């Protein structure tokens, strides 16, 4: 059965060109680039790694020596938060963030809170937007870091990070953004946006899993998160994941050239999918921002009166892979913190469906998706007691 993959915010298929670029580095070019001064093969691999650094830097308009390779978004987020907090404690102990961040931000913030840091959360409105004015009000002399995601992974809302960056700059506070959902999809200029630290992950834009990077603006005071052999300028120790890094570099290079074109295609499929869902299925409501202000591939909606897990499992049976913020649970499992933050009613917490389109989706898939969705929504509503 052919798979229709609609969970591209969770991960994406590796682009064939990325895979091809990576393969030799598993076998004949397997050496450790750390020994580049004594081994010619290591030196050759080091050149590829450094080219990847240039390509990643170029994608976000940073300098190559501001890019540090990590194992992915989670590690980059941990590095940014814990690294900046611990290195700047004598300056202050307050951090500002939102209630709709990914767990890779929320959990490290909880740890920092236990260590005595004060975490101030800005609210979001019903579309998931942060109000920069509210951030301004929360800033104090003790604020050392503002961490606001570029776009929300669940509802796709793109935050006004340029204004937030401006506030951070005015107040001489470091600004970190978790941009794993946007890098490689929308153009980012870290200098223009006043970003000091940015997290990115290869597998969200057609690169391999297990590799990412953190951009750290020159002069940023930060402690390393992973300590050891001193790789990556001491910011991130550990033998370099050469295959992953080279894959990330290639994915970045492709994205720089093709993301506008791919973004248009993805947006058109998403828009037409949502139009048909609305026309053919009653009782569906969009979560998050209007189409122009959310990630181009993101659709997140409530299907009133049904729970998402049976719907997702049934769609999966027909080869359609979609997501839901928080799977249906009869008991104690926590509903999505994002839906809670945007004020969704309790009875709708488990009725969320997320469909995220990617560049490998095709127009022809739209009707199949809508037909199956319509069919199962009807069946599950008939089965429901109320």
């Amino acid at each position: 059965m052919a798979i229709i993959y609609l969970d591209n915010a969770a991960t994406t298929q590796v682009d064939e060109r990325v895979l091809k670029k990576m393969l030799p580095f598993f076998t004949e070019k397997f050496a450790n680039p750390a020994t580049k001064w004594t081994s010619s093969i290591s030196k050759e691999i080091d050149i590829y790694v450094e080219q990847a650094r240039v390509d990643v830097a170029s994608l976000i308009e940073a300098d190559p020596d501001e890019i540090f390779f990590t194992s992915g978004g989670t590690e980059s987020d941990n590095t940014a938060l814990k690294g900046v907090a611990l290195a700047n404690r004598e300056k202050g102990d307050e951090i500002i963030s939102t209630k709709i961040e990914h767990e890779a931000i929320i959990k490290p913030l909880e740890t920092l809170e236990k260590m005595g840091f004060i975490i101030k959360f800005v609210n979001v409105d019903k579309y998931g937007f942060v109000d920069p004015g509210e951030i301004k009000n929360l800033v104090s002399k003790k604020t050392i870091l503002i961490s606001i995601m570029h776009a929300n992974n669940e509802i796709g809302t793109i935050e006004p990070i340029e204004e937030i960056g401006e506030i951070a700059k005015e107040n001489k506070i470091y600004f970190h953004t978790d941009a794993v959902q946007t890098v490689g999809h929308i153009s980012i200029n870290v200098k223009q946006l006043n970003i000091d630290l940015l997290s990115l992950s290869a597998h969200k834009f057609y690169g391999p899993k297990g590799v990412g990077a953190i951009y750290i603006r020159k002069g940023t005071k930060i402690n390393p998160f992973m300590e050891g052999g001193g790789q990556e300028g001491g910011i991130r120790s550990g033998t370099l994941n050469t295959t992953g890094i080279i894959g990330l570099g290639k994915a970045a290079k492709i994205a720089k050239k093709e993301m506008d074109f791919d973004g248009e295609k993805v947006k058109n499929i998403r828009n037409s999918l949502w139009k048909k869902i609305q026309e053919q299925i009653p009782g569906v409501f969009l979560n998050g921002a209007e189409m122009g202000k959310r990630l181009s591939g993101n659709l997140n909606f409530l299907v009133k009166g049904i729970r998402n897990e049976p719907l997702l499992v049934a769609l999966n049976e027909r080869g359609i892979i979609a997501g839901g913020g928080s799977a249906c649970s009869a008991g104690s499992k926590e509903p999505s913190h994002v839906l809670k933050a945007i004020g969704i009613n309790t009875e709708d917490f488990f009725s969320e469906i997320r469909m995220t389109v990617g560049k490998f989706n095709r127009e022809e898939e739209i009707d199949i998706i809508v037909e199956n969705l319509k069919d199962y929504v009807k069946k599950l509503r008939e089965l429901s007691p109320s």
Partner: protein
Amino acid sequence: MYPEIIMKHFLNPKNAGKIENPTLLGEFETSSKAKAVFYFKIENGIIKELKFQISGCPYAIAVCSIITELATSKKVEEFKQFSKKNLEKFFEIPEEKEDCINLSVNAFLNGINKYRLP
């Protein structure tokens, strides 16, 4: 992902729907608003007809369907001691799905326990 028997009953549930003028109802609702309702038609202590409606996960739906197959044409008395243990011969109960299974079992027991022989 799910055991075969769960998928079979989930995709094609047996005895789904309502009974008009049932002898009694068995209901249960969880804190997260998952809800199951059993409709019992009972004559002389025998479950003549048993149907259900549910808003819950695939396990909960499948368990309702399995229970209706087990209990139809049987004596109410036979199910006074029913618990999710009785389902273990059909499939393994994963810890994270216990609440879903309890939803259906509790709704069924709620009905069973209401019944008094005329």
